[in-house]
């Protein structure tokens, strides 16, 4: 493919790609997500082998895609153009799917999703309750594209937002659009992205950076990798647009060292984007130059924290620094550095394409757009979900998540893993909203949602999160390092039946000092799960001390 040098050339290239696609040709999309990996390669090979055996090469297409989101029922295979969806597909099913469905156009009944409650079968993806209640503006693209193919992305309109931004809008207009859309950071803080961009744009410096934080270290959070691995060009496009708005000519992608498939897809996406002319000098003839470099983490949770991440990019140990001067003003090598996470960048192209009015029409008053949530814990449908802000937690847990398995009752839901908070079942009608949830002490965080059934021991849960942080704290500052050490002591005592009177008060004091005086966000929020457990489940803590005291 020759380099694309202008807007019209891009549209011509797109037409050529689309015209080559036979829309009525049968093809299958095999979910290549990472959550239900079981036998992934063998499944792909089985289909390829079968197609060869039945001499169908060239007549039917096979597309290995990113995560479809329905992890509990994975691996999923969708057959187009009918959109027949098969769940829990195994390599030995390949032969029957190819001969009966791809050729014979008949449905293989035993592979169709069956609702465990009603017993109703759902042949098409759109009929499955799990999908029906979602608004998959971002994830919905995944089954339609091979992440390794830039043409697939172009065929569904990819890079048209970039062309619009670079050729028909000034950087200020792009910035204004993102501000008007009220896009809020999806990495945990919910800070308005447009305001951050503006700070970086207004900072006086020759060289500026934009960064995509693809670290996603929060336990139970796996939505970023679903979209990044499945649709890397979407994030790349967002990042280039951000660079243009901020006035940066260099972007960084920071991601995990332990996800080779993601790295491969991102590397290839960058290579293809450069070949097609979406990266490099004079992009689409606009005069704007931009390049992206990939950096890998060193395997520590705190390197996902913005200032630690920036140190890591500089080649230093990823220790957080206090952000008394914002990183948007002084970040990597003391230069203005605008960092947003994967999902935030993924939202940018649609805001530019469809406009801020369209975007602001989705969600609640102060939380706009959709949010990807990874559902896990005691829930029937684990998976990656995308819903508009404002959807109630009840809808997410019951209508989409299918409720609690084994006939158990729901006890609580927990957002934000080790740095988040828990809500009791009584608050299940709370809407998914940055502010409503953080007011209740359970901020959305990155979007990992743990569901807990009636058997969950809240004291054990707090201890579990604290154990995680003990391994992930850098240990630099006293309130975090020593606070965790002493809190763990107390939890160990409590679980051994040696809890003492005054333990709860000591925990509360350590939580307070930790949240006020720690150096970084990790230390400041170490206490969040404990605080919210003490807020809503204090009796359980008290009981664990009393019953033990009684036993002595």
């Amino acid at each position, binding site marked *: 493919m020759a380099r694309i040098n202008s807007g019209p050339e891009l549209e011509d290239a797109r037409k050529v790609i689309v015209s080559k696609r036979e829309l009525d040709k049968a093809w299958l999309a095999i979910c290549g997500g990472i959550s239900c990996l079981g036998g992934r390669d063998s499944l792909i090979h089985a289909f390829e082998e079968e197609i060869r055996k039945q001499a169908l090469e060239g007549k039917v297409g096979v597309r290995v895609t990113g995560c479809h989101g329905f992890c509990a029922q994975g691996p999923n295979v969708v057959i187009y153009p009918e959109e027949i969806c098969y769940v829990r597909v195994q390599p030995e099913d390949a032969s029957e799917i190819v001969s009966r469905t791809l050729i014979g156009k008949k449905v293989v009944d035993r592979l169709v999703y069956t609702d465990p409650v009603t017993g109703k079968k759902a042949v098409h993806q759109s009929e499955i309750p799990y999908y029906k209640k979602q608004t998959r503006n971002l994830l919905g693209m995944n089954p339609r594209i091979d992440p390794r193919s830039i043409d697939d992305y172009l065929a569904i309109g990819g890079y048209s937002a970039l062309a619009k931004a670079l050729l028909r809008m000034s950087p200020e207009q792009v910035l204004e659009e993102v501000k008007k859309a009220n896009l809020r950071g999806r990495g945990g803080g919910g800070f308005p992205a447009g305001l951050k961009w503006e700070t970086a744009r207004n900072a006086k410096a020759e060289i500026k950076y934009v960064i995509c934080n693809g670290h996603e270290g929060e336990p139970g959070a796996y939505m970023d990798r679903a979209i990044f691995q499945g649709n890397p060009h979407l994030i790349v496009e967002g990042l280039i647009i951000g660079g243009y708005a901020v006035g940066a000519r260099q972007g960084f992608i920071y991601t995990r060292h332990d996800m080779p498939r993601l790295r491969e897809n991102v590397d290839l996406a960058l290579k293809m984007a450069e070949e097609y002319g979406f990266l490099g000098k004079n992009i689409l003839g606009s005069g704007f130059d931009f390049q992206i470099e990939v950096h890998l983490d060193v395997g520590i949770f705190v390197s996902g924290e913005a200032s630690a991440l920036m140190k890591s990019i500089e080649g230093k140990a990823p220790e957080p620094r206090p952000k008394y001067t914002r990183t948007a003003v002084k970040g990597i090598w003391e230069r203005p550095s605008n960092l947003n996470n994967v999902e935030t960048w993924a939202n940018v192209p649609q805001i530019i394409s469809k406009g801020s009015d369209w975007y602001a029409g989705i969600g609640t008053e102060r939380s706009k757009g959709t949010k990807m949530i990874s559902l896990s814990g005691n829930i029937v449908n684990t998976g990656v979900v995308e819903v508009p802000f404002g959807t109630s937690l009840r809808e997410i847990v019951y209508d989409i998540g299918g409720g609690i398995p084994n006939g158990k009752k729901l006890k609580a839901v927990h957002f934000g893993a080790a740095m988040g908070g828990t809500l009791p079942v009584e608050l299940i009608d709370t809407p998914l909203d940055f502010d409503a949830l953080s007011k209740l002490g359970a901020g959305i965080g990155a979007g990992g949602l743990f569901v807990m059934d009636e058997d969950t021991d809240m004291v054990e849960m707090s201890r579990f999160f604290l154990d995680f942080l*003990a391994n992930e704290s850098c240990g630099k500052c006293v309130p975090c390092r020593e606070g965790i050490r002493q809190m763990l002591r107390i939890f160990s005592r409590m679980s051994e039946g040696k809890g003492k009177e005054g333990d709860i008060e000591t925990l509360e004091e350590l939580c307070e000092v930790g949240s006020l*005086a720690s150096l970084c966000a990790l230390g400041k929020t170490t206490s969040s799960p404990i605080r919210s457990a003490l807020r809503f489940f204090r009796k359980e803590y008290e009981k664990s001390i009393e019953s033990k005291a009684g036993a002595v």
Partner: protein
Amino acid sequence: MSDVLLTIDGKEVRAKGETSILDAARSAGIFIPTLCHHEKLDPYGGCRLCTVEVESRGRTSYVASCLYPVENDLIVRTRSEKIAKIRKVILELLLAHAPDSPQLVSLAEEYGAKPDRFEKESSFCILCGLCVRYCAEVKKKNAIAFVDQGPKREVNFIPEIASKECWNCKECFSLCPTSYLQAAYFLTEALAFPQRALKSSEK
């Protein structure tokens, strides 16, 4: 950098634009306790004992004064009930490591910290990092470093460098607020380069 005017404990203080609250306070004769601070070293922000209350644009927050840069109209309070609580708890946490450190003992008296609130820890080290940073920033030798993370963090001499560099230096010894550093050094010496020590004592 131009001068800025701020208020510390009700007193108007003028300071250069990029100084820290800690330095501005000290130059105005206001004492803020520290454990990990040293004039020759970059500010670190590890002990958090120098935490103060700042009010800026109507918002109150708690910051490490050794790192927070002064700004115009900033209102700083170096003492309050909350700050006293923060310092007391920090001292109690550290006294579990080094109950006999004179610095900690005198601060504990001032803030009413109970030396035996938490169970005794086996290591004396309070991880202020003075030795590590002095060796790296002033001596540029990096003979001692932090290893591991979280509550498992500790300082260790690097035998290969220590055997060459530490013998004639040992300048970090006097910086240590506890007796841990010397213990760590002699342990490293005994394990990694005992000949050196032996030879020297024969002389």
